[in-house]
């Protein structure tokens, strides 16, 4: 499967999906005009890949500074997908990377973590720029 690398724009995050290494990342701000058009294709491919894994190690970095409600719904879907992948015998690590001064993003990470049963959810403070 071909890796996906989409540069960040004003409204959409950087997408860095390395299917060979099973290392995935979303970075930046997320409030695309059309959430479905932006996330639909990349999540479709991710779902396909994750569904095929057995006993693999998966890492997903979320390094977001802002996202809107539609993007939040996408994220929750992603977390479910990753949790299911972990439930199927894969070692999944989610890194929730946030600005140390952004209490909002920290709390969001903690809330998302509450629902997940099988993944290892790691809260990480972003290195100061």
């Amino acid at each position, binding site marked *: 499967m071909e890796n996906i690398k989409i540069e960040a724009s004003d409204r959409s995050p950087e997408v860095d999906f390395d299917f060979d290494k099973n290392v995935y990342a979303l970075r930046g701000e997320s409030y695309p005009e059309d959430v479905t058009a932006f996330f639909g294709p990349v999540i479709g491919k991710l779902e396909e890949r994750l569904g095929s894994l057995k006993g693999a190690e998966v890492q997903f970095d979320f390094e977001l500074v*802002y996202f*809107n*409600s539609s993007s*939040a*719904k996408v994220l*929750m879907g992603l977390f479910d997908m990753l949790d299911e992948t972990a439930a199927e015998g894969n070692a999944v690590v989610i890194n929730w990377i946030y600005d140390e001064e952004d209490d*909002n993003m920290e709390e*969001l990470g903690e*809330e998302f973590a509450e*629902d997940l049963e099988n993944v290892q959810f790691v809260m990480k403070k972003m290195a100061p720029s």
Partner: protein
Amino acid sequence: MAFEIFHKEEAAIEEAKSVLGSGEITDPKAAKHYGTLLKAYEKLFKSTKRLVRLSDRNEAELNKVAHSLDEKNHLLEGLSTKLSKYLSPQIYASIFSGEREVALETKRKKLTIFFSDIKNFTATTDDLEPEDITFLINDYLTEMSAIALKHGATIDKFIGDAVVIFFGDPETKGVQEDALACVGMAIEMQRHMMDLRAKWTEMGYSRPFQMRVGINTGYCNVGNFGSEERMDYTIIGGEVNLAARLEGVADPDGITMSYETYALVKDYVDAEKGEPITVKGIHRKINPYKLIGIFKNVDEKSRYFRSENDGMKLFLDFGKLDEDTRPNAIDQMEAAIERLRGEETK
């Protein structure tokens, strides 16, 4: 019980759980579907709660940003208001409206230039304390600036007690109108100086200022001069020097114009031709025109009436004497006149 926005949804979930747990649904297939549906509903409910919270947080964050932007705008507004005091209002307006580029650009335009200073400023202020000089010069420049702005002038700069003003840029009403506005302004300034002198004398300043004015009309380079880091919106050229030179030959309380200005305003004011002068950088002989009748009929319009002789000092401020205080002033003056007449017949 505290108000809960999701009270109904929570109650529905509890009820569904209790139905599922009670064994009311006897068909195992139906119970399984019911359980799946309940789980999906619970998840959806959780997502909804989370999204509502996220939306509220984002809104709060947005409000915080908007508030901080308001504060910054307010701060910038305050700063720009303060900075505006260092610029002529027209220049400030044209820069802030985006009409004018802040760049080292100049153009050639026909302007009417006004140049004034205080006669013997140094000697006049020699025995004054710095605080008094500051008060006098600020009072003088404040009053003159107000008149200049009223006439639509561009105040170029203050150089100590000297004032450089021009008409014709950035706004112009035409060369003749600009010249008329400049001369009209100069007349009003000289007339107002009478009031100021009366005020200053009353305040105890024994040698109040006398202003001299030179006016010239001609082509100048106008625009931003200096460096990219520090520039001045000003005028340069031989015609500017000529205005300064005309000021130098003007009488105290007088206004002297070049022929170029006089030619534009001669239908409206009277002037007498003075001795020709030479000005460095200008090859032609310059004929100065001294404006006459500056103070014609001025007494009726002046705010102050002041007269001082040995044994008599009279000062009236018509700005303060209103219909309540005027009759008393009249009574006192009539009493004074009566006594003066009585003394005469003794």
